[in-house]
């Protein structure tokens, strides 16, 4: 080092190198300080991190499996048909939803809703359930509305076919079928319009669960 200083001329002229190094150090210090400050903000369950990704993956898997088991044992179909066709001036609504039109404090009062509550609500995980229907699944009906999802929400989907002769599951309407509602034989209305799918299928609807940590 000394030899190098001597070759450079030595003495006070050496300080230029030190100043340069100092300037670099100061710059790095500033940038690192900023980065560190940004990264060191309070860690919450919603902070972006690898463990947070794990939680999202898990939630997506759980929501998807819940839909699959509910579809298999028929609970999902039953929940979609838990519709009172005559309330709200014959526009109909899900049983017991009142003016909101959707359940806001948890799942619907049936087996699918119990499964939702058991899986998510008991673990402080919020969820929305949305039903998309129509020829291109362009219409939306909210079954459960627990608010706006956070940025870290995940979605699981499942398609369900409703048959023309499917009976409603709402108390007192067990003999009402979708076809009889559509052609006006039975009074009231169903939220899925009869978009005349070929065959004896009323419509193919898509059920979406959006899940996020509260």
């Amino acid at each position, binding site marked *: 080092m*000394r030899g190098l*200083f001597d070759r450079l001329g*030595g*003495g*006070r002229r*050496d*300080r230029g190198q*030190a100043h340069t*190094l*100092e300037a*670099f*150090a100061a710059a*790095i*210090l500033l*940038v*690192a300080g900023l*980065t*560190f400050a940004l*990264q060191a903000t309070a860690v919450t369950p919603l902070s*972006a*991190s*690898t463990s947070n*990704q794990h939680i999202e*993956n898990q939630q*997506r898997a759980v929501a*998807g499996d819940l839909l*699959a088991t509910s*579809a298999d044992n028929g609970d999902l179909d039953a929940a979609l048909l838990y519709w009172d066709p005559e309330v709200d001036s014959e526009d109909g609504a899900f049983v017991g939803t009142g003016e909101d039109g959707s359940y806001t404090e948890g799942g619907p009062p049936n087996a699918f809703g119990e499964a939702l509550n058991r899986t998510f609500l008991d673990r402080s995980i919020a969820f929305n359930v949305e039903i998309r229907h129509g020829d*291109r*699944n362009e219409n939306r009906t909210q079954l459960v509305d627990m608010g706006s999802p956070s940025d870290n929400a995940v979605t699981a*989907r*499942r*398609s*369900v*076919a*409703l*048959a*023309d*002769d499917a009976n409603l599951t709402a108390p007192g309407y067990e003999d009402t079928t979708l076809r009889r509602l559509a052609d006006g034989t039975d009074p009231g209305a169903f939220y899925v319009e009869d978009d005349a*799918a*070929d*065959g*004896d*299928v009323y419509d*193919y609807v*898509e059920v979406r669960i959006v899940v996020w940590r509260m």
Partner: protein
Amino acid sequence: MADVNAPRDLDDPNRGDRNRDCLRDADRGQLLLVAGLVMAVSLVALVVLLNASIYSENLATRGVEAADGEPLEIRAAAVDGTGTLIDATNREQQEDDGYSDAEDDVEAGITDLNGRLGQTAARRGGIANLSLTGDGLREGRYVTGPVDDSATVRDAERTRAFDLAIGASSLPDANASTAPADAVTAVFNRSAANTTHEVYVYDPDDGSDEAAIATATNGTNATETCRLDAVDGGRLSVGLTAGTIDGEPCPGIWPTELSDEPDAYDIEFANTDGVDAEMTATVLSDGSVTSLESTPAVYDATLRFRYRTADVRFETTVRVAPGEPND
């Protein structure tokens, strides 16, 4: 911080030269300090960078896993949709309808479903295609109606969605040993193997519960498989192929030997006099059906499903027969 400067000798006659050397040595302290700082900051920066790269890698690889589930999701939609379509079509068949009516309806429905699945896939940047394979649809019979002892279904090769609904109040009292003589009995008669399998439904005569199911082979050694303490709505539904009693799981009702059976079997009933019982089933059979309503129906459908995106290529053949017992 410690003084790392060399001591100054101000009285030295050659102090001019020495002073210059001292100043050079003085710079060393600053250099050491700055070098230390640079190293410390570099280490911190390295840690932050490492963390960021691990996070980015996690995000990058996550996409592939999510894409894995998509074809399965659309496949499930195809299978469920076709199953509902087949069953809804079979239920709608009238007595004077031929098999071709059901076949046409199901084929049109599958074409319609294919279009919808295509739309779903297109929204995710993929292509989906659902079509019948060469095996296509197989003709079966949709059998329904009130059950009496003369009701039979002959030469059934396969059976699916076989449900029995019995008025709880008309269920005969019995226990496992008296069941062959008293209980409502569904008999699966494998005449080629000279073997019968029985499923008994009865009200346990000890009064503890409302309904019970027992099974037997060749009508002997009946063993109880499940019990139910209360029947909802006064009507007991027994899912013989699904293995359920009033919606509750009851494994082991369906004789597993029937699934391996290469020869056809007959379905018969016994002890149903005075019992309010109805059945529905879809059977793959070209034999006769007596004392029950029977319409030509689609038994199953063999489909080819294809799904393709930039990352995933998925192709499978799947047979749809909703409610068929697992092998």
